């Protein structure tokens, strides 16, 4: 019997993987994809909770999350393109003027 | 910005400030001298859920400080006619400053007071930091941080009062008049007094918290110096009168020796250091330390002569030191230097200026017949009545005042003209004359016929003394016990129940 816990743990694993990805990767686009992964992990727990609680709110939330993710992807990628145009790189370790 | 637009801005600001001054005059004429209650009170809810109100009103103590503010404003705007850098922003800063200053003197709601207190800090910071001299950034930051350090403690104390009041009356309010009725234990008074006094002592500035003053004055533009010396410093002394004494009477009594000695040291020290300055503005700045020492001594004499003298001296200092800064500003505009050594013999080229300067100098020295004397004498008399020793030491300050002011005057105005540049100096222009004449007229007026001023203060000062005296007596036993040991109960435990 698959319980909600299974889904939540799976969601946790995916989220953690996403976090680790963000922390260890340097390619901005891959980091971005890791963030998408984290979003998806959360989506999964939403849907799982909705299912086991007999609620529709979880699914509706996922819908909104996706919209936000879409918007974020659009803007974020635009930023990456803009940065790349200026600095000829998407390595975020080369983009470190945000200090002191 | 083209010059016509600049001219328009200047004239508009000047008109606005004059209108404000004219509007403030009815305060004086309609003021009921026999009532100690707050007059012209306005109270509107602002943030009612926290008990914060727009609550303003004046009594005989704040009346003259407000008038002083509104009076000095047009004067200092006239004195900033030569400003060309960012005129619009400058004038905005000046007017915001005026709002803040009048607000501080008028607010009866501690929250409102604090807002105004901080509000006037910002334009002053900008005035020094943008339109100031070469080391303006250092001076502005120093000024700001010094004042902020004090303010933080005051804010804490205000919040503590807020909760203490709630515990006593079950009502959330920042109303000062409500706070007056609080019966605080000595320990609480002790710490809250310290917090308030720290903020005010920096503002006054009392020795040894004065070092921001010379820097701020030296770097500030003329009008900034005038306002700084004329009004801003008075907020410290005003704070003592308005908050420290009536709110924490027993603690105030305990602190008499401490504050008095600080004041006395300030008087002598300020005078001695002032004597040896070679920068005119610094000299005047240090003389402020000395003068304000007198004010503090008078306030902490706890009798009517002392406090009335103190208030009078606040006005006097505003007028005469303000005028001195104006005079120095005029010299600076001509020669672009403030070093005493760069002048000498100016009387020959500028006789009218010399006369005006001399009158102002004498007023600052405290020559009888001019304003400074009335305040200084009453202060010393009050101090003499309470502690003979304090007054005797402080009186020697009047000797030193003569030394440093006259020496300065001599080196600037007398002797032969040595420097070639000084030979072509022009005497005061019409605008400069118009700036100084009103000041000088009031200097004479207060010196010769100060009674109308003093009468308006009577009721309020008597009430203040009654407040401090009565409340102090109720716990006088406690006070004698506690003078030796610093009380250990801290404010946190007193107010913790509230959190």
């Amino acid at each position: 019997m698959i319980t909600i816990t299974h889904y939540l743990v799976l969601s946790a694993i995916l989220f953690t993987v996403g976090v680790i990805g963000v922390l260890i990767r340097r390619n901005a686009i891959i980091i971005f994809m890791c963030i998408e992964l984290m979003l998806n992990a959360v989506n999964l727990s939403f849907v799982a909770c909705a299912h086991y609680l007999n609620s529709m709110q979880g699914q509706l939330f996922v819908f909104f999350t996706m919209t936000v993710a879409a918007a974020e992807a659009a803007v974020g990628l635009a930023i990456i393109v803009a940065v790349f145009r200026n600095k000829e790189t998407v390595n975020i370790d080369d983009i470190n003027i945000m200090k002191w | 910005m083209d010059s016509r637009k600049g001219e328009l801005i200047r004239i508009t600001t000047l008109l606005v400030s004059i209108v404000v001054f004219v509007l403030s005059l009815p305060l004086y004429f309609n003021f009921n001298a026999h009532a100690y209650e707050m007059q012209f009170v306005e109270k509107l809810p602002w943030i009612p859920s926290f008990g914060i109100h727009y609550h303003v009103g004046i009594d005989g103590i704040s009346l003259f400080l407000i008038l002083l503010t509104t009076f000095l404003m047009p004067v200092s705007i006239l004195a900033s006619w030569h400003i060309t850098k960012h005129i619009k922003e400058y004038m905005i800063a000046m007017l915001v400053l005026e709002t803040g200053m009048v607000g501080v003197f008028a607010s009866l709601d501690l929250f409102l007071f604090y807002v105004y207190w901080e509000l006037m800090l910002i334009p002053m910071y900008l005035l020094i930091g943008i339109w100031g001299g070469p080391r303006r950034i250092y001076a502005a930051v120093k000024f700001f941080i010094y004042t902020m350090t004090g303010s933080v403690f005051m804010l804490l104390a205000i919040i503590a009062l807020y909760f203490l009041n709630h515990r006593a009356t079950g009502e959330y309010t920042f109303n000062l008049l409500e706070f007056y009725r609080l019966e605080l234990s000595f320990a609480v008074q002790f710490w809250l007094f310290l917090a308030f006094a720290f903020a005010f002592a920096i503002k006054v500035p009392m020795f040894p918290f004065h070092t921001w003053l010379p820097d701020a004055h030296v770097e500030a533009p003329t009008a900034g110096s005038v306002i700084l010396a004329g009004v801003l410093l008075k907020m410290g002394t005003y704070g003592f009168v308005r908050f420290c004494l009536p709110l924490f009477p027993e603690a105030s009594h305990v602190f008499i020796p401490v504050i008095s000695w600080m004041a006395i040291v300030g008087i002598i020290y300020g005078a001695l250091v002032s004597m040896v300055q070679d920068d005119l503005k610094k000299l005047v700045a240090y003389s402020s330390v000395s003068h304000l020492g007198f004010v503090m001594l008078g306030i902490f004499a706890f009798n009517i002569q002392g406090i009335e003298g103190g208030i009078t001296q606040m006005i006097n200092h505003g007028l005469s030191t303000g005028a001195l800064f104006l005079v120095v500003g005029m010299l600076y505009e001509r020669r672009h230097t403030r070093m005493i050594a760069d002048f000498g013999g100016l009387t020959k080229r500028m006789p009218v200026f010399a006369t005006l300067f001399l009158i102002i100098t004498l007023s600052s020295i405290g020559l009888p017949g001019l304003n400074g004397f009335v305040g200084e004498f009453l202060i010393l008399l009050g101090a003499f009545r309470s502690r003979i020793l304090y007054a005797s030491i402080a009186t020697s300050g009047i000797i030193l005042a003569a030394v440093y002011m006259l020496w300065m005057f001599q080196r600037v105005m007398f002797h032969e003209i040595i420097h070639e540049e000084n030979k072509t100096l022009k005497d005061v222009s019409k605008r400069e004359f118009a700036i100084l004449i009103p000041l000088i007229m009031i200097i004479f007026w207060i010196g010769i016929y100060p009674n109308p001023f003093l009468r308006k203060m009577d009721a309020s000062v008597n009430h203040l003394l009654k407040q401090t005296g009565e409340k102090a007596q109720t716990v006088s036993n406690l006070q004698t016990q506690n003078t030796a040991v610093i009380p250990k109960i801290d404010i946190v435990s007193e107010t913790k129940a509230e959190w």
Partner: protein
Amino acid sequence: MSEYLFYIVAAITVTTAVYLIFEKNPVFGALYLIQTMVSLAVLYILLEAQFVAAVQIIVYAGAIMVLFLFVIMLLNLDIKEEARNALPFQRIPAILMGIALFTVICIVIRSKLLQGKQDQYTTAYVQSIGNTKLIGNLLFTDYLLPFEITSILLFVAAIGAIMLAKRKL
């Protein structure tokens, strides 16, 4: 049956996700992510959220990931892009922290601190109306305001993306 399906799909999801974070080539990374998303869509169907599953494939795997691929290719990134590593020492702590995070989340899940409330939308009820229809009803009644705000958000995002990406306006 669905139990096995869950385990298989879950395994695929985790594997592709892990591949994603260790893959050097971003194009492959994107493909792994697409696979993850498709797998997630399968899980959504298992959870009887057909509409979400469909949207997941259409919007995520379809639109968003294509956008990613498009940008990757536009920028013509290759492997040596990641040459400079300013924080090599962060790798191990990062992984450790990830594990710690996972542990903490698991503890939270186990502690049952966060308890939901049972609602009326049982499987039978949803099936009687239809998942999509129900969502549609809710979106245009109870969640109308968030929905409209979402549309504004997308609009703004579109403008913002254009603003950022265009060289000259």
